[in-house]
């Protein structure tokens, strides 16, 4: 009789191990589902950032292409030197005209190439980097490259 009572008591509920296994299985099912739910939002945010970066890069590149090539200063212009209404270089008469886009860092590198028998050219590399204030998906840098005749 005492054995029967003990057996009945043992079978009355889940053991701790069973409950833990159930929780782990439940979590293993939920985590991928929740991950799938958040992927769509990440994609939309990355598309928004890519659109802003694309137009910031093209905007900077386009205006550099409007100047005669000889006015483009050779060297690297860091973000602090690339500001709206600031001169491109001290000896250059042209100014930057830029849209205000938070969360990006601009950089321009201009190098001069001269090959024998060829017209001198300048290559332009514009890079736009996303920084923490705008993007949750960091370490993304987009480059825009072209070359102009040094006329």
């Amino acid at each position: 009789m005492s054995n029967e009572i003990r057996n009945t008591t043992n079978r009355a509920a889940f053991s701790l191990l069973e409950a833990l296994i159930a929780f782990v299985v439940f979590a293993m099912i939920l985590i991928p589902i929740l991950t799938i739910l958040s992927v769509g939002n990440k994609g939309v945010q990355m598309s928004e950032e890519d659109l802003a970066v694309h137009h910031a890069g093209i905007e900077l590149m386009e205006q550099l292409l409007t100047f005669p090539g000889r006015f483009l200063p050779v060297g690297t212009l860091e973000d602090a030197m690339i500001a709206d209404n600031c001169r491109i270089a001290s000896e250059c008469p042209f100014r930057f005209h830029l849209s205000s886009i938070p969360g990006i860092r601009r950089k321009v590198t201009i190098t001069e190439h001269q090959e024998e028998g060829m017209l001198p050219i300048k290559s332009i590399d514009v890079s736009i980097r996303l920084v923490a204030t705008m993007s949750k998906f960091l370490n993304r840098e987009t480059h825009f490259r072209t070359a102009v005749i040094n006329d």
Partner: protein
Amino acid sequence: MISKHFASRRQGFTLVEGVLASGLTLVLIGCLIIVLIQFQRGFSQGEESAVVLNEAGCFLSFLRYDLINAVGPTDSDRTDWKRYLRVTRDKISINTFSDVAGSIQPVEYVFEPSPGGGTILRAQGPNRRVLVDHHIASLTWQLETDVATSPEIASGYRQLWLSVHMSTFGHTKFGGKTKEVPISTKIFPTRLHRQLNTFVNGYDISEPVR
């Protein structure tokens, strides 16, 4: 004794157990339905946001491409720079090279504001195309200019650009709106700059002074 023992083992669920199991099942199904509705809303918002971003990107790409190919009037000099791009609050009018033979066609961008979301149309000759369909919350575009001078270009080098500030949003299937996305950019018509700043008063300012 043995028969009594077996009977107690086979008796099934009690009412309390049944009610508890039903309650738990209902709670789980409720949670699942809420999660699925949220997922559907999120998916709908994401889908609409993608459409809106695509339309905004398409509009800006068309405008940039048209401005790269824009050509000024042949009967004007650089003092007439306002004739090169005609920009009003709701319309941009430009002439562009439309083919390799050098044909010139007028292109117009028309903004039609509306409380439910503004629309942008592009018209080239008889063709009209809606680029952004009721997704503009606000839009301003304006023509800006600057003149750079130096001893080398004493007559000045005029720059023209179009500043575009827009905010877009989408309508979800559940009657809501997606997050507004602000976009600002400046578009520089490269070919117009060359036309506007070359051969001023018979002097080619694109050549360095010797």
